[in-house]
């Protein structure tokens, strides 16, 4: 037990200047006063102190143990901060690497597109000289054809008899000749002959080939001189020809130019965007998407890290409380993960520790009571016999002279003898309680213990209506036990049950044994590790608030009870490493349930 005097053993000054930290939250200040058992202030009882400059602090537990608590961790050194930082760094690394790769990819494909566009530009540029060449060649061809037509007309002038006539005849002939050529040549729009004395002659079909950017391009070749005409009818005769060129090729060439102009633009969401601007927008979009992903990852990482480290913080706080002596501290439910399992296991360990501590405390109390019972029995038992002999002598020495006195004497002596007998019985009980031996544990089958009990104590009372029911015990249930003490326990329990019901009516007591099935979550194929010995009765039962107290020595509800039977039972059971409890019985009364560990020879 820890008391104020513990502080004397630790001459380090208290560090009251420390700001409140997690350990303060779960530390000594939160440990209830009643656990200390001394009523001393918490800080005094735990003796928290810090050596100057060392950073570490020393705590004294209730058991007087000194534990070293590490220095208060700054926020950047905490696990939570480290996990969050690590997650953030990983997120930045991954997203940054992805963004860089995407940027490289975009740049790479953009360079390919630029190269393709440049090739398209080159192709268009290559088309230009072709178009120029085509135009030049066409014009040369038209000029050559005009020259050829001029030569043809020259020959006609030389051969045609009408041509040797007067100016009018020549003019008529030439017009007819021009029309004939016009009919023959499919792309000629107009033929004009100048230099005739009778005036120029024109053959045309403009309506058929209108000069229109969407239909026909006109090209005029000439004037081409004609030789051989008589000077009297013609002076400087020339032929001018106009040709019609289809605009198909020109339109295609213009379409090529329009397509070239559009190479630098793309349509995005119905809007026209310059390719360079689009590349920048893609980079910005990737950057924004990366930032969004990073933000989501950071928030998720933060929450995840916080959820994990919060469990650790909780666990650490509970451990610190336990280290400070608060064995009632328990880890809250931390979920199904490893930390949750660790918390559950820690709670189980604390439960075991608490149970063991309570057993120890009970055994200490019972030991003290045994010692007191032994002394009382010794002090009372010795004078009883002289007192009894003295009063018997008084009764025998009475001469009987005074009948009134004699009657008074006999009555008084009977009273004294009755009380002496009562005291003797009490002393006997005290002696039996004080002399409960230490259990000699050997492997023993519980069926044998119950069978011997049944044979020896099968009759409860003299009454026919009273029933002691001993149910068959499953074979193979072996424990490490003391057969005699266990039988004594059974006797005590059955007697207790009989005495509680005897005056109320027929007694029904049932003794049963069963192996305890594995707990939920444990492999059901595993063998049982404990058995349950039950003594049920149909008595008045025990109120729930008294079920713990009935095992305390000298705690009884019956006038003639000593309150030692159940105390002996509990002591014996605890000596066997078992547990005992009271619960309601299906017979209508109370059931005392004894749980005993099964003997496992292979267990270490």
């Amino acid at each position: 037990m820890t008391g104020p005097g513990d502080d004397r053993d630790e001459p380090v000054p208290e560090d009251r200047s420390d700001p409140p930290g997690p350990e303060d939250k779960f530390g000594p200040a939160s440990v209830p006063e009643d656990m200390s058992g001394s009523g001393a202030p918490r800080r005094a009882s735990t003796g928290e102190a810090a050596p100057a400059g060392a950073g570490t602090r020393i705590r004294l537990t209730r058991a007087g143990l000194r534990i070293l608590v590490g220095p208060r961790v700054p926020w950047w050194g905490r696990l939570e901060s480290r996990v969050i930082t690590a997650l953030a760094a990983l997120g930045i690394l991954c997203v940054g690497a992805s963004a860089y790769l995407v940027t490289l990819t975009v740049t790479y494909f953009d360079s390919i597109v630029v190269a393709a566009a440049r090739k398209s530009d080159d192709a268009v540029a290559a088309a230009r000289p072709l178009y120029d060449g085509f135009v030049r060649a066409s014009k040369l061809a038209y000029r050559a054809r005009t020259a050829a037509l001029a030569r043809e007309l020259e020959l006609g002038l030389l051969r045609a008899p009408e041509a040797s006539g007067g100016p009018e005849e020549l003019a008529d002939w030439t017009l007819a000749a021009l029309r004939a050529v016009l009919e023959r040549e499919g792309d000629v729009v107009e033929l004009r002959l100048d230099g005739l004395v009778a005036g120029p002659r024109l053959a045309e079909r403009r309506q058929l080939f209108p000069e229109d950017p969407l239909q026909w391009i006109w090209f005029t070749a000439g004037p081409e001189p004609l030789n051989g005409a008589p000077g009297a009818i013609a002076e400087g005769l020339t032929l001018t020809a106009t040709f019609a060129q289809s605009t198909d090729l020109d339109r295609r060439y213009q379409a090529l130019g329009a397509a070239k102009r559009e190479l630098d633009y793309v349509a995005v969401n119905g809007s026209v965007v310059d390719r360079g601007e689009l590349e920048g927008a893609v980079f910005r979009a990737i950057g924004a998407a990366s930032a969004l992903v990073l933000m989501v990852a950071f928030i998720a990482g933060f929450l995840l890290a916080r959820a994990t480290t919060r469990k650790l913080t909780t666990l650490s706080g509970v451990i610190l409380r336990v280290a400070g002596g608060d064995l009632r501290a328990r880890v809250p439910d931390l979920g199904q993960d490893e930390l949750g399992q660790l918390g559950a296991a820690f709670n189980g360990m604390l439960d075991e520790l608490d149970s063991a501590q309570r057993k120890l405390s009970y055994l200490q109390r019972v030991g003290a009571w045994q010692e007191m019972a032994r002394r009382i029995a010794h002090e009372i038992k010795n004078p009883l016999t002289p007192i009894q002999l003295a009063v018997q002598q008084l009764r025998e020495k009475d001469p009987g002279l005074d009948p009134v006195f004699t009657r008074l004497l006999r009555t008084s002596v009977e009273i004294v003898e009755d009380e002496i007998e009562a005291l003797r019985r009490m002393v006997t009980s005290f002696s039996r309680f004080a002399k409960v031996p230490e259990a000699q544990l050997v492997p023993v089958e519980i069926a044998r213990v119950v069978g011997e009990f049944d044979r020896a104590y099968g009759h409860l009372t003299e009454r026919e209506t009273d029933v002691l029911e001993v149910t068959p015990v499953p074979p193979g249930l072996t424990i490490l036990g003391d057969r005699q003490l266990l039988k004594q326990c059974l006797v005590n329990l059955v007697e207790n049950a009989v005495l509680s019901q005897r005056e109320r009516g027929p007694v029904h007591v049932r003794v049963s044994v069963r192996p305890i099935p594995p707990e939920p979550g444990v492999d059901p194929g595993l063998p049982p590790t404990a058995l349950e010995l039950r003594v049920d009765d149909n008595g008045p039962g025990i109120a729930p608030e008294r079920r713990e107290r009935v095992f305390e020595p000298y705690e009884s509800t019956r006038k003639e009870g000593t309150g030692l039977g159940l105390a002996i039972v509990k002591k014996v059971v605890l000596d066997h490493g078992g547990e005992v409890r009271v619960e309601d019985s299906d017979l209508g009364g109370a059931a005392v349930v004894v749980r005993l560990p099964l003997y496992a020879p292979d267990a270490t």
Partner: protein
Amino acid sequence: MRRRGFLGLLVALPLLTGAGGLELLRARRARFEEVGDSVLMTIALPELLLIRDQDAMASIESAFRTRLEYEITLYRAGQAEPVDLRRVTVQIQWDPWKERYFVETKEPDRSAIRRYFVGRDEAILAAVTLDRLRVARASALDRGPKAVYFATVVAQRNPIEKGLLSPEDGEGRGQGRDLSVFSRWVGIFIRATQVAEKTVAVKTTPAFYLVPR
């Protein structure tokens, strides 16, 4: 307070820029004449087709047609509603058959006017100058110094025809839908869209009024 003022300025910025949108137009000298019932405007926008613009010159010399779209809006000073709106299309092209430049001016519901030039620079000057263009009917305008008018001219060189651009992918399901979503995402980050190779927007100055009769 400073932070609140800054936030207020940020919120009001779109309104300020919207209200001052017209003021963002560059000022350009223009000449207005009243001839009969017409108000004629003469203005030059040489930056639309600069001679030092090598790409534009290369395009012209390659006999590719260059199209200039003008949108002339006449406003009365102090009023947001336009008084008149005209659109003019001017094309300039080298004709390799006839070895000359031609400049064709076309207004809706009017026949095109073609002018021919031997020199490139003359043709360009003619193309970027709106010479005595009818911008309004005089009878539709108020007279006197209180009725002041000005015009805005938005000119585009080779407006981009969306039909010529490659169609957008990304419709449908699966990856196509993802592409569509990504396209919309990228669209958010586009700062400037393009409607033409070059755009020039000016506001005529000084303003004019019709002399009272």
